């Protein structure tokens, strides 16, 4: 701030000094923030089917988050509880009054595990996205802004990882991090980090592409000329203007994160049944049940995954459509080739 103010006393130049204070007063920050809030602004400009999809998605996602937060209140039992008041639930029991969705092969309450599973899912999604955004943005910013050999190396590595089956990479990572077995927190962190490695290249690409574009803008150049420190240019001038496609990527990744988590769990690389409830793991244990006609152990965790992924994907899809003017306007055929 002090650096910016020092040139002001030099008035003897003929050039008029731009009155930046006046400009700042004309555009109060508060109003702009509410308008620029990612989801709200897009909800406002949506119409018809897109609006329906966006609202449905938001509602499902909202319910999922609520259930995850309120899991201790909703779930009748703990995720690893096999009996109530000293009476065993019994294994593979069909839905009844005590276990409204039946019990699993290990004698756990299906309903409670489905509810608690949402908490695990939410934690993993949040941790995975937080990690991958942080690393992805940092790498993309540095790589895109400075360029050079670092940029080229990172791009080649990111492309190589991007082309690789993400589930396999997540498997390798979960072997590395936890040797495949883990309790609640280390399990969540291991899974989240496994997913992070898969997603970092995506954030890296998106941010880097934007940074390369913004870097050439005149305002970055003028900031350089007046001697703004590089760190400040990166965060203030470049990063602020490079995040417009992030909401779409984040939502689409959130659903993919959940699918990867479930896939890992299904292959037996999730979180152990006694440490936390995880839908993919429950489905893995239900493979044998299906063959003998026991449907309740697989249907409910599976439906939970489908619903949550559907909700998040609907939000992401609609945001994606709304951010693309060719898809946003209805009744007009797609743009030029």
């Amino acid at each position: 701030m002090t650096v910016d103010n020092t040139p002001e006393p030099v008035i003897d130049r003929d050039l008029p000094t731009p009155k930046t204070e006046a400009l700042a007063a004309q555009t109060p920050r508060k109003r702009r923030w509410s308008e620029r809030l990612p989801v709200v602004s897009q909800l406002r400009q949506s119409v018809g089917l897109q609006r329906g999809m966006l609202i449905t998605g938001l509602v499902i996602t909202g319910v999922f988050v609520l259930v995850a937060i309120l899991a201790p209140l909703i779930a009748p039992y703990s995720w690893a509880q096999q009996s109530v008041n000293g009476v065993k639930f019994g294994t593979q029991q069909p839905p009844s009054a005590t276990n409204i969705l039946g019990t699993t092969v290990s004698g756990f309450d299906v309903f409670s595990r489905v509810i608690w599973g949402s908490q695990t899912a939410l934690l993993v999604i949040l941790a995975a996205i937080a990690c991958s955004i942080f690393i992805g943005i940092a790498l993309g910013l540095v790589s895109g802004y400075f360029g050079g050999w670092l940029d080229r190396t990172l791009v080649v590595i990111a492309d190589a990882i991007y082309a690789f089956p993400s589930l396999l990479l997540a498997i390798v990572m979960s072997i590395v991090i936890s040797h495949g077995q883990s309790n609640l927190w280390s399990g969540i962190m291991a899974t989240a980090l496994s997913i992070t490695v898969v997603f970092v290249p995506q954030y890296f690409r998106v941010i880097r592409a934007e940074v390369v574009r913004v870097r050439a803008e005149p305002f970055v150049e003028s900031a350089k000329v007046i001697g703004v420190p590089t760190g400040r240019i990166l965060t203030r001038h470049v990063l602020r203007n490079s995040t417009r496609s992030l909401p779409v990527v984040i939502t689409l990744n959130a659903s993919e994160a959940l699918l990867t988590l479930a896939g890992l769990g299904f292959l037996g690389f999730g979180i152990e049944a006694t440490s936390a409830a995880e839908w993919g793991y429950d489905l893995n244990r239900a493979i044998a049940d299906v063959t003998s006609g026991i449907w309740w152990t697989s249907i409910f965790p599976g439906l939970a995954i489908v619903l949550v992924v559907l909700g998040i994907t609907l939000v992401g899809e609609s945001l994606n459509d709304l951010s693309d003017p060719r898809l946003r306007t209805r009744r007009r055929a797609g743009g030029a080739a």
Partner: protein
Amino acid sequence: MAVDVLAADPVATRPKSSGGGLWRYILIRLVLIIPTVLILITLVFFLMRVTGDPITAALGGRLPADQLAQRVHEAGYDRPVLIQYFEYLGNILHGDFGTTITDGQKVTTVLLTYGSATLELAIYALIVAFAVSIPLGLVAAHRRDKWQDASLRIMAILAYATPIFFVGLLLKLVFSVWLGWMPVSGRASTQTELLMSGVSTPTGIYLLDAIRLGNGSAILDVLWHAILPAVALGLLTAGIFLRLIRTNVIGTLGQQYVTSGRSRGVSEYRLVTKHAFRPALIPIITVMGLQIALLLAGAILTETTFEWKGIGFMLSEYLKARDFVAVQGIVVMIALIVAVTNFIVDIVAAMIDPRVRY
């Protein structure tokens, strides 16, 4: 070899000989595969070594410490990591992807034995995906923003949102257990498997083997077993293809030559299937090629669900047994397959459309 092609190149790029551009393009793509594969191999190798040697991971706790140390020493895992790394690279260059710890098989043997099953499944799945996505994608593009399009979009999102193993379990539950129409799992019934073992030089692709046997019931049995896994894997892929076809055909439908075709009285059916679909094929093929990675990951989950004994099934078995040499070998081989497939797709796209070339 590379020098030869480069030397021949100037001759080939004379005016009117478009072949040269293609060769040059193929060469560049081929060279670009190397860093991609090398990065993945390096990444996987060092990641797997970070946590210790594979022998301790597989047998730790089951063997006394001194025996374990001896096994580790025999396999050379106590040497510096860099030496092991270059040895590993050298082995891969010679086509040696390692020997599994649990059953002492070469990874390449595992891949040759079970790869055909995965290939067969992938082909069936692709057939299902094309059969579903092409007509539906064209309908969605043609009836854009109408109810058909809306419901198809929702269906495509649903197909994406449903984990492939859940689709598999549902299909099993409904068609195998409740209705009893389909077999629960496996690639063929025991009787057919026995018949198959009698085939000389089996291809491993059961349908081909059954056809060579000339046994009608065996062919039916093999196909019958393939339906549910193929549908499970195919539907996932179909959802992606559908959206891809829709977006691209909407783009070409807006072109002026389509309007002019319409004004000349070309039928709507012909407009969509020929005029709009054909030029939309290039981006479609390119992106479809990139989906091979997704298809392979899906195959792992499908094979586990249906006990379809392919690479994916074996991978999950080795994972359970903590045989990380096998896992590493299979993962690296899949990386190679993906890289080569992407290369082939690029070349096909370049052959279809000369504009793709540099």
